[in-house]
């Protein structure tokens, strides 16, 4: 006989393993897309893989065979350049075929380099211009609520660079004004933007205090610690609509996480990788995943 406690830890362990497998699959999908183009926003995508795995493979309500299903939660990718991470997550979630990742950014592909609603099933907004996601998320969260559907959650994944834009803070203020408990912002704090380190470009800290002062429920986690990410997501989904407070999870992530050859590179905003390095990257990813499993 297993005790209730033992049963719970077994369930938790299985859940963790399932999400870890999904994160591995997403990272591999990212590398495959990177290899198909020889370059791209690979560092960011590897860094955010754990968060996406937790959202897509544990939290998000959707129907893989019906991406337009009315009752779905919404996941808004603000950051169009992270599209390859979303495509890999959509493949892991069964929304798009895994083989299609090979067409990433090719002429005529449904998977353009910058994520867009009109091209790809499962993409909720057209990204590319940064600082547009949170405002649309406010509209969706508010719109669902006035229709009595605030059991449907709206997630928005932002980057730290997007915290430079005034529009992000306009939306942040609005979300707490409208008491949007069904709105969840995930912020990827990877410390980088186009011209260099966020600290050098435009200082963002103190992040917890800033969001809290805007009326948000704030958590800050290591975004590459699956356990911590899942716990933070559990907190927001458990307290979602009822509480009437928008929630933000600030995720400190490491660029190219899980792939040492790529982590070692310095120009990480847009990675160019030699053809012979991709197989090494994949081997390292697989080795790391095996080690973590054992």
């Amino acid at each position: 006989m297993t005790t209730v406690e033992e049963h719970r830890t077994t369930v938790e362990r299985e859940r963790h393993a399932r999400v870890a497998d999904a994160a591995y699959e997403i990272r591999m999908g990212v590398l495959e897309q990177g290899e198909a183009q020889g370059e791209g926003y690979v560092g960011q995508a590897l860094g955010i893989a754990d968060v996406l795995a937790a959202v897509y493979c544990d939290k998000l309500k959707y129907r893989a065979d019906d991406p337009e299903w009315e009752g779905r939660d919404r996941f808004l990718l603000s950051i169009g350049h992270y599209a390859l991470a979303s495509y890999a997550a959509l493949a892991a979630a069964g929304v798009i075929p895994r083989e299609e990742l090979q067409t990433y950014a090719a002429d005529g592909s449904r998977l353009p380099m910058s994520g867009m609603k009109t091209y790809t099933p499962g993409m909720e907004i057209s990204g590319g211009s940064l600082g547009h996601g949170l405002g649309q998320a406010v509209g969706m969260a508010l719109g669902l609520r006035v229709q009595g559907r605030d059991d449907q959650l709206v997630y928005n994944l932002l980057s730290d660079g997007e915290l430079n834009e005034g529009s992000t803070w306009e939306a942040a203020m609005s979300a707490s004004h409208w008491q949007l408990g069904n709105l969840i912002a995930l912020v990827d704090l990877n410390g980088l933007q186009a011209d260099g380190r966020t600290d050098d470009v435009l200082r963002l800290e103190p992040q917890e205090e800033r969001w809290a002062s805007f009326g948000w429920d704030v958590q800050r986690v290591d975004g590459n610690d699956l356990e911590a990410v899942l716990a933070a997501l559990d907190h927001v989904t458990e307290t979602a609509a009822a509480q009437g407070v928008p929630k933000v999870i600030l995720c400190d992530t490491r660029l190219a996480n899980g792939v040492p050859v790529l982590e070692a590179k310095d120009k990480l905003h847009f990675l160019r990788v030699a053809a012979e390095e991709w197989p090494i990257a994949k081997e390292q990813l697989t080795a790391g995943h095996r080690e973590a499993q054992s």
Partner: protein
Amino acid sequence: MTATTTTTTADATTSAAPEAVPVKRSAAMIASIADPGVPTTSAPFGHALAALGERDQRVVGLTADLSKYTDMHVFAAAHPERYFEMGMAEQLMVGAAAGMAAVGLVPFATTYSVFATRRAYDFLCLDAAEPRLNVNIVAALPGLTTGYGPSHQATEDVAILRGMPDLTIFDPADALDVEAIVPAAAALEGPTYTRLLRGQVPRILDRYDYTFEVGKAKVVRPGDDAVIVSSGLMTMRALLAADTLSADHSVELSVVHCATLKPFDEATVVAQLDTDRTAFTAENHTVVGGLFETVAGALVRRGIAKQVNPIGLPDEFLDAGALPTLHDKYGLSTQSVVDRVLGALR
């Protein structure tokens, strides 16, 4: 002559010949616009601004997290004390540039064209243009110069800005134009907007008897059979098309280059069009609200009934993909210009 764009080299990516590699690599953000055989100059804007900064201590540079992608990094390295990274906050950057101009500086501020126009329009209009401040917006990726999709393709930037009073709009054809525009923009009292060509920028106007002058259209190449009024990189394409038309088809195409789109040199352009030659406009911009309509307005105002064939982008959101593919598809490649001219003459 084969389509010139299929072998275009890119500075951020290498696109192989399509027959060798079925999946063309995307242009990503930055792709070269140089046709084969056209020499290039590296970062002409950055070097010209750094040189101007040597001579004029009032010159300052601002960017919105895009210094590396707009050639501003050259100025930043030369004059770090007069370089300001404003973060990815385009509205703030334009407002702050206006503030700097108001206290006596001469700011040059860079971002991509889409963000300068779509995002920061209100700030440029009221903070800089209405007070007639010396704010110089230098915007990369004008028109269709990236395969990154509608978020980055500024297909309507001129249409957005043309209605702004007191704004001077430059559309340089090549590196020489860019180099000449930098000091000219600083010397103008009011605000300017330049459709920047960045990275490895083609150099072609030095083959002709041409000098840049603010507000002037120039007949760069004479020709008796047809005339094309062009601006920006389409002047380069028109000149290359004219070479092909002359060599292979005995068609002499005149090219009239409008490096300043506003104020527009109506007198020169109308005089060139009010002839019996077959007429075209060519612009790296939607056919709505840009050079074509500027030219049409100038003709109509004078009561001149003249057919003008517009070469430009369609009124639609364009595809994402490799830039050479897109220039062929949407008719901006050199070969497309050749075909359009021959088609109209037939």
